[in-house]
């Protein structure tokens, strides 16, 4: 499983980076979204992979940490998800404003000369 997830992160990262380096604002925002998936999964990986052990305590007598997936990366990813959501929204609005004010959707606010 680990190799699948690592590859998945790799593909998401590669797609995200590729889009990040593109000249159109919409490509960049798509890249940011894909990168956020990749990063969230990456953080999540840091707790290692556990199947069928959600960190929801079964009872006061079942408090062995080995029974549950590591909750910390999950909490971190939650925060990261929210923050990426917020920044995606912001980026979207900025790119719209830029599109309106500059007349182009190029990331530099003008079409390249070539």
């Amino acid at each position, binding site marked *: 499983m680990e190799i699948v997830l690592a590859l998945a992160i790799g593909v998401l990262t590669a797609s995200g980076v590729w889009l*990040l380096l593109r000249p159109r*604002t919409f490509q*960049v925002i798509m890249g*940011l979204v894909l*990168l*956020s998936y990749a*990063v969230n999964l*990456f*953080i999540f*990986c*840091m*707790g290692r992979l556990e199947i069928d052990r959600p960190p929801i305590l079964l009872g006061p007598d079942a408090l062995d940490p080995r029974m549950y997936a590591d909750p*910390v*990366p999950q909490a*971190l990813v939650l*925060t*990261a998800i929210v*923050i990426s959501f*917020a*920044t995606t929204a*912001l*980026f979207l609005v*900025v*790119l719209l*404003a*830029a599109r*309106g*004010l*500059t007349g182009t959707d190029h*990331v*530099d*606010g003008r079409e390249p000369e070539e």
Partner: protein
Amino acid sequence: MTALLRHLPVIPILVPLVVGAVELLLPEARRGLRVALPVASVLAQIAAALMLLYLTTDSMPDMWTEGVGVYSIGSWVAPFGIVLVVDRLAALMVTLTSLVALPALVYSLANWDRVGPGFHSMFQFLLMGLNGAFLTGDLFNLFVFFEVLLAASYGLMLHGSGPARVKAGLHYISVNLTASFLFLIGVAMIYGMTGTLNMADLAQRLTLLDADDRALFEAGAAILGVAFLVKAGVWPLSFWLPSAYSAASAPVAAIFAIMTKVGVYAVLRVGTLLASGDQQISFIDVGLFYGGAATITYGVIGMLAAQQLGRLVAYSVIASSGLLLMALGLQNEALTAPVLFYLVSSALAASAFFMLNGMTDRTRMIQMAASADVAPLPDVTYMGFGVKEPADPLSSEDEVGVAIPAAMAFLGLAFVSCVLLVAGLPPLSGFIGKFAMLYAVVQSAAEGALGWHDWALIAAVLVVGFAAVIALTRIGLRLFWSVTGRTTPRLRVIEAGPVGFLILLCLGLTVGAGPVMTYLDSAARSLHAPDVYIRVVHTAAALEAAP
């Protein structure tokens, strides 16, 4: 009072948050309250910061052991909960933030705050983010506060809108979002290898890693470092900075002066903690040194090439950041105190300079009517938001404020003071900062046998100053002393005052260089001997419930 004192470390975070939130509730018509609250908030932050500064001098040992204050949020002790840790460096940065914030805020009241909604909220949230970033002792919490301050800075950067700002803002945001991803990856790897997030705890657990795990840890730390360096404006990661800073409105740029310092702070904080013990992450230092040198080169070249004052000042910010990093990269502990002094001084200087720049070309500010060919939203939708469309603040009321005589004289004098500060010339504090660096380099070399790294730093200090003089006299003469098209701008006390305040502060730093250096020296010492920090964080108990 003692109760308040017990909760002092969280005050600089809480107060701006509350005021920022209340600002959202206040209707636009309550101008008086909308202005008074933020000012009061900043004043409170100054008071709190000074108190923190006082406490870190170990003046109340029964309250804070060894001058380090630990405040466990939620009563969960380190490393399990998030703790705020106030050591000298943190107190210094919080104080610096509040001292830059006050003039920037007052300056903004000259209608800069009214060119778009939400200025005061975002300003307060920015302060919250900055203070949080300086005070937190937790790596992920540092990320969160970085995001708070960045989010607010996005808003402030775009405050007033307009093509230049939006274009620069797009780059600023893109770059910082990318850097945030790096931050997350770095933090994640560090957690993955050590299982902890508390910085002091991290420093301890490092020693438990074997070589392979350590390599992975260092890879994470390096990625984290890149994220910090993007914020610090290091070459080649800082091309966004000149446009962003010069496009932002003046009070915003003024408070942004502290933003690159956040990056430097993070490098310093995390770097010193992680480098504690015998294992040094030396490649990071090498990177800092060369990165700093390249940044200085970039800043200097940019300063000389700059055609507008705003860009020039932005490049000077880059150059000073480079100088700080280069000095840190020398791995010379004697340099840390001078670096801190220079950091403070350059932040104050850049802040003053950006405000001055705003006063000299105010006309550029009023270009927002560009969107006039599209009608504003109809009333009904604003009612949905619970606001009334305000009158355009730029149209009629722009020229309120008391005009003071001798506008040119003031502007000229302030300009010269800023030049002195940026170039590191006497008698203002920039000189002391640079001299202190030279002094430290030379003094700490055994028998005066300076290595080429040392010579390079000495040269850098001198060259930056010289380049600043060349560049600034060129632009200054054109701005202040050329006859053609010279219209004496109307100067308002509310704008001139903050600039004067900052310059006086710098003068004060020069005169009071003795006590300031003493404080910074002990701050630097404790940074390089993080055992105290680590020990206090680990042993601090949560606040006892009141009887």
